[in-house]
């Protein structure tokens, strides 16, 4: 078939002799003004997505997976946090934990199941390898949310535990300022898991210290833009918490962690103050209150029935020294400080999972007591002498 030469092309500049179009276009290009904007349509049908979520919840329960749901707006660091978690177990020889990808979940919708497992496999292997090699994950553009099944086996007697990490797009949580609802509802797949999974779920609420590139040359000039972006991220977390309150019935076994990520933007690694690796709880709280006032208030006000201390906690986090898509390779000294974060997070997750199983366990063995230093020995001797002389 030969294409007829296209005599009329579209011009960006206004043409004094506009192209004549059929009358039928008028009614299409001038739609009625009074129609209210509709919310964006969801992937597939709501029913099929809810069914997928129900089956995922059933599979997770049956196979003993502990779901880990990560909420956060675009560029909050969800994917980087996940890759740093998985990468840590492969690079720290002190972790002494085996990690492997779990089996795919068996779902009626085989197309989704196959797709999700392919994505999970790609994330678990390729994305983590790239992270280790110095390349951060790009902006998540998956059309659907999916869970990454991970199985960890600590050395010794600690039991094997299974986790299902949610990977999703940040723009699914961003507020929709044009719509009447303002806050987006959770994706049906995710909300259906929350509704149907009866055991405890770990929730990570990601609140990045900054939304712009931390180590970019243009970072200082981006500060004004950062304020606006953080406000949207603040509202995104509020929306996620609202959705959680609306759909999740069984709350008393859930655990929530408000994570202030990109902590290296606040306190550079290796600094003299020690704020990077061991800030005070007051310092972290002040940052959370100042940068995410709405989300942090909603988090504190979240009612979880029993209100146990372990159910709601706050922590800072650093996935690594990341600028754009480059992950800097840390020095030996900084490595210990940076690895501390995924180690603590794994400890928290493992405790949640084992607590839910009825026997809370510690993932990492407790460190042996430190050997007494010369100063300690001297102080002890002096104390004994003073006691002997009756002072």
């Amino acid at each position, binding site marked *: *078939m030969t*294409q*007829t030469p*296209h005599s*009329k*092309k*579209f011009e*960006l500049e*206004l043409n004094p002799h506009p*192209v*004549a*179009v*059929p009358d*039928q*276009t008028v009614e*299409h*290009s001038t*739609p009625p*003004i009074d*129609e209210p*904007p*509709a919310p*964006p*349509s*969801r*992937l*597939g*049908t709501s029913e*099929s*997505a809810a069914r997928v979520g129900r089956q995922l919840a059933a599979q997770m329960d049956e196979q003993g997976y502990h779901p880990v749901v990560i909420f956060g*707006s*675009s*560029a909050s660091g969800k994917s980087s946090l996940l890759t740093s978690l998985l990468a840590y177990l492969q690079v720290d020889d002190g972790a002494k934990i085996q990690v492997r990808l779990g089996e795919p979940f068996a779902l009626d*919708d*085989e*197309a*989704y199941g196959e*797709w999700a497992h392919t994505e999970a496999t*790609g994330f678990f292997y*390729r*994305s983590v390898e790239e992270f280790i090699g110095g390349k951060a994950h*790009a*902006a998540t*553009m*998956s*059309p*659907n949310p999916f869970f990454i099944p991970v199985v960890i086996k600590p050395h010794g007697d600690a039991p094997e535990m299974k986790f299902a990490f949610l990977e999703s*797009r*940040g*723009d699914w949580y*961003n507020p929709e300022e044009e719509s009447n609802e303002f806050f987006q509802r959770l994706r049906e797949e995710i909300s259906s898991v929350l509704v149907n999974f009866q055991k405890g779920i770990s929730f990570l609420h990601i609140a990045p210290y900054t*939304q*712009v*590139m931390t180590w*970019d040359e243009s970072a200082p000039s981006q500060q004004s833009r950062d304020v*606006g*972006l953080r406000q*949207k991220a603040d509202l995104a977390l509020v929306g996620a918490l609202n959705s959680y309150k609306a759909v999740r019935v069984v709350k008393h076994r859930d655990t929530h962690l408000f994570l202030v990520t990109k902590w290296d933007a606040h306190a550079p690694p290796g600094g003299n103050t020690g704020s990077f690796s061991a800030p005070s709880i007051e310092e972290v709280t002040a940052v959370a209150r100042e940068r995410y006032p709405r989300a942090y208030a909603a988090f504190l006000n979240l009612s979880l029935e029993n209100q146990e201390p372990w159910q709601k906690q706050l922590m800072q986090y650093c996935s690594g020294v990341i600028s*754009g*898509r480059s992950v800097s390779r840390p020095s030996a000294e900084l490595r210990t400080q940076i690895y501390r974060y995924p180690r603590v997070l794994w400890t928290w997750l493992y405790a949640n999972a084992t607590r839910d199983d009825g026997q809370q366990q510690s993932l990492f063995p407790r460190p042996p007591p430190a050997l007494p230093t010369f100063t300690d020995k001297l102080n002890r001797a002096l104390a004994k002498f003073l006691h002997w002389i009756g002072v």
Partner: protein
Amino acid sequence: MTEESARVPEQLLLEVLYFAGGIRSKLYGATARPEWVPPPEQIGLQNDVYLAPGQFAIDFSRFRFADDVVRPGAAHWFGVYGYAKDLYGDRGNFCGVGLWVPGVRLPDTEGLFDMLLKLVGMLQKSGLTETGPSSEFDDIAERALKFAYGCENWLGLAGPLRAAEPGSTYGARATYVVLEEPFGPGTGLSADLVLAIDALFSSPIGLVTPRILFLPPTDINFDSRITSDRVRQGVQRLLGGSPKSVLVRSLLSIHSDLASELESSSTALRLAEANAAQFEEDAKLVREKYDQLVARLKESKITALLPPMPKEEFFEKLEDILREYLNRLTAARSREQSNLQLEGGSAKVATELNTIKQQLNSLLSNANSKHGVPNSWSQPEAPLPPVGISETSEMPPWWMLAAGAVGLIVAGATVWWVLGQGA
């Protein structure tokens, strides 16, 4: 509707994808996103390819209609993507502009690609603000949509009138075609690529990968998760043959399918016409029979006695008769009281009352018959009910008897007095 305007789809939508603190989209051609349009997450680059400045990608995607309504064809997306940065910085982002084409129409690929490429170029340079597309871009996008509706951009029907098969709502995996010749501003599309896209639009539903990305020949940054089995080198590898041959085969197949459908429809029409003629014949016979029965009914003696009348008229006549007899009854009583001429009066009253009773009984029996209220006086009279001796309506009232007795006495006394005077 002219033949030319019939080539144009009933509805076209232009959608813009951009990053402004996360991926966003804006739809032109409707105030609200129509139900049939798949969500924007289904389109765009999906962590599979990362474009560098100056690189573009063409997206041909075919989706089920999102509202699950059965319609011919599918929801096609024809889009062009380019490099972009987000407000957060460079995180493998992109921007894009595309057309949603519902149904089975074949576009003029070259013209529409040129339009979309120009829009992407404008979006990259100056068309985006921190909040989204600029008002200047909005104006140009509206103009572009009007341009897209032009008849010269559409070549006709592109597929059979079958709807897409139902199946999983989660899209299939994309296929990536690395082209042999570059494309972009000033270079246009190669003939093979144009034919390949035409062939994709014309291919039967279900026989083509739902999502195909056409990429420039060099320096493509694939995500490491994209395996080599999903990448094709050139359009011939994609289609399994020359694009021209594939397109011709598709069009011939469409023609053959349409011809078959036309033949089936013609046969069905002939059968329907034959059935209609038969029904008309049957109706004529029934009409004739009906007319015969009506005529015979009219000719019968019973019907000759009285003309047929409607129900309302019957009840009016009944009322008149009853009133007439009631009046007669009243007049008879008046004559008797004033003249005291009772000879034959009571019997006359009794007879008239009996007649009234008979008429009433006749009327009532006709009204209560199985066939409902008689439509005419031609109904046979109902048999007279037996008359009982004890019925009080046959005996004159007591006062009449008393008056009669008094009258007799007075008459006898008068006669006696007259006779006594004569003596």
